């Protein structure tokens, strides 16, 4: 059974007369205990997706439709009090910019135990402190970090603090939003390895947002490729990497050096840039940049079709034949 099921999720930003469709009826499942990497370039709607699931999008100017079930509970229509309770206990998040993830004028431990005691008000301050120090140890930080301020830590240490914070209640779903992008390669690898080990130990389901194919390749079982708010391809990471069905996925893979070791193919980048989402192209969303585009691609957006177990792609040309 899927831990998280997203059904027809759409997000539209309104600003004046412009209406930007940042997510376009997205469908996605993550099974319990698995890991999903969501890849796409900046502006593809990755962050909008998490913000929508966590209901952190600003009210008023944003329109959300569709459903997202976590453990059977529908998040988009959930009442505020229930939502507050669910946040962090069932789904936690590690943010992109960990340096700014905590209040600069509060001690790390003070902030963490304050969060801890929101969900567990009955716990004494001393017990909260013990729990926080345990968490810090879990991510290989000395317990004295409790009494430090964010600016006193390095980027890698702050990232570990963010991870410790996210693991506070052993959440079922852990979301990492470009969580290691800002770090140097050595620290990044170290932290990724630690995360993978921790989630096995704690039985956490992980959703990882990144633009780095190599991170997905080394840490995620499944991958979903997002482009301009549309899901283009999804499946087991190894399948998708070895035999990408969508021209965009193919382009993404060709633009990363790691996968070209054997073939010695030159690196290629995808020409053009994301379409203007307030007036998207009439056919396939990727058509203006697609090197294989034909007439049909200019006319209609292809639907997501299944190609084998859990393998989906949205392309008229996928699988060698033209799909209508």
């Amino acid at each position, binding site marked *: 059974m899927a831990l998280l099921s997203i059904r027809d999720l759409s997000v539209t930003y309104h600003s004046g007369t412009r209406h930007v469709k940042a997510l376009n009826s997205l469908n996605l499942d993550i099974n319990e205990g698995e890991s999903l990497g969501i890849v796409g370039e900046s502006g593809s709607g990755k962050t909008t997706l998490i913000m929508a699931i966590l209901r952190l999008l600003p009210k008023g100017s944003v329109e959300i439709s569709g459903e997202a079930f976590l453990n059977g509970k529908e998040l988009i229509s959930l009442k505020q009090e229930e939502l507050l309770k669910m946040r962090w206990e069932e789904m936690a998040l590690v943010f992109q910019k960990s340096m700014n993830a905590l209040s600069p004028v509060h001690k790390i431990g003070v902030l963490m135990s304050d969060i801890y005691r*929101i969900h567990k008000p009955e716990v004494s301050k001393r017990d909260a402190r013990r729990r926080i120090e345990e968490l810090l140890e879990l991510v290989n930080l000395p317990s004295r970090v409790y009494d430090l301020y964010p600016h006193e830590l390095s980027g890698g240490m702050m990232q570990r603090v963010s991870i410790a914070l996210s693991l506070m209640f052993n959440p079922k779903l852990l979301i990492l939003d470009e969580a290691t992008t800002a770090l140097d390669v050595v620290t990044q690898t170290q932290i990724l390895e630690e995360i993978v080990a921790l989630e096995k130990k704690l039985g956490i389901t992980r959703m990882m947002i990144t633009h780095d194919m190599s991170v997905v390749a080394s840490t995620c079982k499944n991958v979903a490729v997002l482009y301009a708010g549309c899901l283009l391809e999804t499946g087991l990471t190894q399948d998708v990497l070895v035999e990408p069905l969508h021209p965009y996925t193919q382009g993404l893979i060709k633009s990363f050096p790691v996968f070209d070791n054997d073939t010695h193919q030159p690196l290629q980048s995808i020409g053009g840039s994301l379409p203007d989402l307030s007036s998207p192209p009439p056919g396939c969303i990727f058509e203006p940049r697609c090197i294989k585009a034909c007439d049909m691609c200019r006319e209609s957006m292809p639907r997501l079709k299944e190609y084998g177990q859990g393998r989906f792609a949205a392309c008229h040309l996928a699988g060698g034949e033209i799909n209508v």
Partner: protein
Amino acid sequence: MSRYLGRRILTGILCIFVALCINFVIIHAAPGNPIRLLVGKDNPNPQMIAELTEKYGLDQPKIVQFGKYVGNLLKGDMGVSIYTNEPVSDMIIDRLAPTAMLALTAAVLAAIIGTALGIFCARRVGTKLDAIMGSVSYLFDSTPSFWLGLMLILIFASTLHVLPTSGMIDMRADNEGFAKVLDIMKHMILPVSALTLTLIPYYFRIARSSIIQVMGEDFITTLRATGMPEKRIFRKYIFRNAILPTITVFGIQMAYLVTGSAIVEIVFSWPGMGSFVMTAITRRDYPLLMGIYLVLSVSVAVMMIVVDVLYSALDPRISHESK
């Protein structure tokens, strides 16, 4: 105490020293003989001239004179008033408390009201009310405090006859104890209002913009994601972070505060330093004028340092820089 504070205190001392130098230079560069200036143009008294020439060592080189001048000041000797012959220091001390009372009451009130209004508008950004409040803040920012004072007198004292217009206590009523305090407070209402109203716009704007800025910070999103209720996020985290610029402004405002207070004091005949300045100017009492300027400089510098101490206690990043 951190190196940051050490630096600020040093700047404060330097500031006072520069004020001293400016004082000295002004006396010696002003048109005419400094003694003439010190004695007052209208009543040259040979005996006094001789006394002062000796006291300030005017026959000695300028640098020695400066040393003497500073030496006298360090001993607390700011000279003698030409008009009353009293020591300047004694005269000033009597006047300090009323000014401090007026200025600090207004500053604290303005900081509280301005910040509250700023928070109010920050939570309603883009609404009509926010726009109106913004325009009103412009209006008060552009209003000279002395004119506002006069208008308050015109409305509340001369037309409505509800509040006293001048002085600090009612001379006719011989109030004691609580009645006296009440009387002083009644006299404070108009001058404090005039001063507060002109100070509010600064706090309003800084609070509004810093709250808006902090609400957009990443850590606020983190806190929301953890399931912390909005009220708690605001009270404990947004406010705590957004209040820092207000404290900075409170410090920067000190110099302006003393100025604004002085002018308002003159309008309301408040017996403080401000009206004293005018007395000194009209009587051409230069030692007194110099003394007032020095004392004000020192007060502003001390107040600013106090605010800096407070700031560095609230912002851990400050003390960290010096480690």
